[in-house]
């Protein structure tokens, strides 16, 4: 049962810690059961997976996608989409390598600049959607095209430069000497912090509740005094910030490339939907979104172990997300 531990640990919304595990399990959304089943299957094929180091490397690989899904969920529950995150990841990776220029002393201010860029993109997405009334699907689609173009313009279309060790440390290194765990990847610690913070923001603050109200019924939310523009801009900033964090982790994990972010936006949206979020807003949980991202990663790990080639794995992912959403829709209609 070790496998279930990481997901339930990130579960900020559940009640008393002393509750019996089966009672918790019964109340869990289906995605956790699926995640658990896949993890058990993986451990059956590869016993090393069910060890602490095995889980740690799994979580390290899944961290960028999970963080991205957590950020995306803020926009999804508000009724929008953020398609710009994939290109923002590419921009963060390419831009960082350009700005750092091989000198590790630059790393810190460059990371700060990347967060500022992310915030600017979020403000832009939210402001254009709120004030110019451009649907966020279009706003962020435009940003997807523009940011990718900008990143490639900056580097001349090819990956240039490299990321120094003190930048890559977050994506690929581990903290050692932690009692009981020996070593923990930085990425896992960052994922944990992001998960707790995002869960708190969405489920425990007024802003989070306003966001869900906005997604549920924008008109009602506005008439009952929700500052819709501000609330929505906040959601886009959260999403862009998560993309910057994911970009820093991915740059560290796999180095500089021009297609590092391609398609990440659709995976993030799929993860939130797998986790029970409703497209066009009004419903979604942070624990579910993160579990959705972990499930997609676990599924890839499993199919890899079973020897499926990558294209087929992508293909099966398509069937799984349709099946999951169809199942949710069916369950809803029945009740």
């Amino acid at each position, binding site marked *: 049962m070790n496998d279930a531990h990481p997901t339930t640990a990130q579960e900020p919304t559940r009640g008393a810690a002393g509750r019996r595990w089966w009672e918790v399990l019964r109340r869990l959304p289906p995605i956790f059961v699926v995640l658990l089943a896949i993890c058990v299957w993986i451990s059956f094929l590869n016993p090393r997976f069910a060890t602490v180091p095995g889980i740690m490397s799994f979580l390290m690989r899944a961290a960028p996608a999970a963080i991205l899904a957590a950020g995306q969920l803020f926009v999804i529950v508000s009724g929008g989409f953020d398609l710009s995150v994939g290109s923002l990841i590419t921009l963060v990776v390419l831009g960082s390598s350009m700005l750092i220029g091989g000198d590790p002393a630059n790393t810190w201010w460059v990371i700060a600049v990347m967060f500022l860029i992310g915030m600017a993109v979020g403000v832009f997405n939210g402001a*254009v959607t709120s004030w110019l009334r451009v649907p966020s699907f279009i706003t962020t689609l435009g940003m997807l*095209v523009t940011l990718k173009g900008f990143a490639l313009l900056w580097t001349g279309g090819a990956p240039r430069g490299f990321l120094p060790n003190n930048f890559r440390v977050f994506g690929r290194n581990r903290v050692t000497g932690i009692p009981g765990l020996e070593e923990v990847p930085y990425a896992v610690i960052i994922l944990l912090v992001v998960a707790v913070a995002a869960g708190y923001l969405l489920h425990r603050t007024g802003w989070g509740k306003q966001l869900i109200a906005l997604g549920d019924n*924008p008109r009602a939310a506005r008439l009952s005094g929700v500052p819709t523009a501000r609330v929505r801009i906040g959601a886009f900033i959260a999403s862009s910030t998560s993309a910057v964090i994911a970009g820093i982790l991915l740059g560290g994990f796999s180095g500089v490339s021009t297609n590092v972010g391609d398609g990440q936006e659709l995976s993030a949206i799929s993860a939130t939907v797998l986790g029970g979020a409703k497209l066009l807003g009004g419903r979604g949980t942070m624990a579910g979104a993160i579990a959705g991202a972990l499930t997609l990663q676990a599924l890839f790990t499993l199919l890899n172990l079973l020897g499926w080639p990558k294209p087929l794995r992508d293909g099966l992912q398509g069937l799984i997300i*349709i099946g999951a959403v169809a199942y949710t829709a069916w369950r809803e209609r029945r009740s």
Partner: protein
Amino acid sequence: MSRPLISRKPGRVALPPTFLFLAGVFVAAWVLVSLFGRGQFLSAANITNIFIRSVALGIVALGQSFTILGGSIDLSVAHLISVTAVMSSFIMQGDSANIARAVAVVVAIGLGVGLLNGLIITKLRVNALIATLGTGLFMQGLLSTSFQNFAGAVAPEFEVFAYGTWGPVPIPVVVLLIVAAIGMLVMHRTRFGAHLYAVGGNSEVARLSGLRTDRVLIGAHIIASLSAVLTGLFIAARLGAGAPWVGQDGVYDLESIAAVVVGGTALAGGRGGVLGTLAGVLIFSIMDAMFNQLGTGAFLKQVFRGFIIIAAVASYSFRSKEEVS
């Protein structure tokens, strides 16, 4: 928007406001190229070139107009384009005797994919974005497993579709205009078209008024898939063979959606038309031609294209009082 984008009087279709935007882009491109560019902007060769650039995206975007107008969306078109391009050239193997068979097979695939998309969306009640993302991933998975590179070759006679001319007019442009004309007929002169507007405007009201909304949406998805098949055939003819990445390389899924909404069709459905989509595609092609003649690189072009998508939609959405998200 208080003014309807398309007059609903039977037989009369008003020019959508996008054409104002199109005219603006055209004049701006003309002035910029005359001042700073090389070559003539207003030459017959250049105008023809702009139209040829519009063909691949234009055909699939015209089909995408139907799904978006119905309040749905199709993200699987790029993958279907790849499937079509590969399957058609694989079946033809450079032999003109196989053209009919190849076309029949890919049209059947297109019908099947459109039907499947429509059924998943209407019967299983899966959000269109997720449903078509899923079917797209699935198709691409099967295709990329079976083919890793250019497969087969189209018959030389088939390349007429991409390179032939009819008098001074290139055949692909003729095809694009015919597809647009058929699209306008179907959308504005048939019962199906009127029903599609009703379903896109308010699906629940349409259903309660006795429309078979499911059938209308399935029809829209079949049209979108068939248009993707036609684009796939054109790309195969142009390249001489299909490869499993041609659809994704062209970003036909997102670009076709962008062209449709730049053309004034509301993403939420119910408002817009195919004529606007044609204008949206031409806006993109004019900008491509302009940036080429100005000698700016492909990436700067991309930076501007993103902003144009946002600006075009903002130009007619900003006066709205509705909340959008």
